[in-house]
């Protein structure tokens, strides 16, 4: 499994995805291969996929530290930790000064698993932004 297999699969889905979502994949070059995945109608919240030796990492960036009301950082962190189990297939994390939701799949996952993960991750991201927006400036 590498990002090109994933891109080929998602691009070939067209109307045949089981999740009703249309994907558009764009590789980003750099020291590691990253795939930028846009979902039709949600282009503002792309998902970035990278593949390591043992896992497929799918990351959706939520917001930067600077978008959070300073007095809300502590309750937000606590809510993120509390929602970590209920939120399916994804967890919260902080990368540098950005908050993200991410999902990690085994390298041996099927393409259907990857598609399912991306769909749920995107839904999680949209819902998290909607429901945690009280913490944001």
């Amino acid at each position, binding site marked *: 499994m590498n990002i090109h297999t994933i891109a080929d699969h998602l691009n070939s889905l067209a109307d045949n995805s089981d999740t009703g979502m249309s994907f558009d994949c764009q590789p980003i070059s750099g020291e590691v291969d990253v795939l930028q995945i846009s979902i039709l109608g949600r282009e503002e919240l792309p998902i970035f996929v990278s593949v390591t030796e043992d896992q497929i990492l799918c990351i959706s960036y939520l917001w930067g530290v600077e978008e959070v009301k300073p007095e809300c950082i502590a309750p937000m962190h606590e809510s993120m930790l509390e929602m970590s189990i209920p939120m399916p297939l994804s967890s919260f994390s902080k990368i540098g000064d950005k908050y993200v939701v991410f999902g990690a799949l085994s390298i041996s996952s099927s393409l259907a698993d990857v598609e399912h993960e991306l769909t749920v991750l995107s839904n*999680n991201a949209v819902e998290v932004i909607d429901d945690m927006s009280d913490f944001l400036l």
Partner: protein
Amino acid sequence: MSIFKKIMTAVRGGASEAGEAIIDANATRIFEQEIRDAENHLTKAKRDLTGVMAEQMAAKREVDRLQREITEHEGYAGQALEKGDETLALAVAEKIAALESDLSAQQQAHDSFAGNAERLKELVKKSERQVAEHKRQLSMVKTTESVQKATSAITDNFSSSNSKLLSAKDSLERIKAKQQKFDDKMKAAEVLESENSDTSLEAQLKAAGIGNQDSSANSVLDRIKAKQKQ
């Protein structure tokens, strides 16, 4: 309130309200029914789409057939005019006019089916997204409730067993001590093993008749005699 916010509120309540449902059992049943309804709706939309696409293809075939027939009859009318047979030409023209009216109707039907198919495709995709979204939300509710009930069971089990709750640091210390003890035991076993190998060698030497013989033929015979006297 959204499901996500309800769950945020519920988990914040903590272990003390573990028994409390995030959405009551009845609401969960309604939620599950909604998912089944949406799935039925999706199945129906997919079946409708298949039907409409079949009609669209049939209309397309009819349009093609009418166009071919019109072209053909235009040829006949031209030939009749060339022969100066205006009456025949007019009869053919009447046929063409009827075919054209037919064609226009079929073309409109085709366009209507195509538009309908497009709309149904979007509807199918929208329903698929909704079913996936509802399932995701129901999974959140069920997971949260399961974790709360599991926590409650674990807490009850722990209090009834009267075991002393260790701090994380104490647990770690004990685990490390056990690890150390295990490593020591392994090292001791290794030493013992190499000693055993020596003993084994000694035993082999003895078997070869080298070194002390602790079991002489006479003592064996005495033993057998003693057994017989019993």
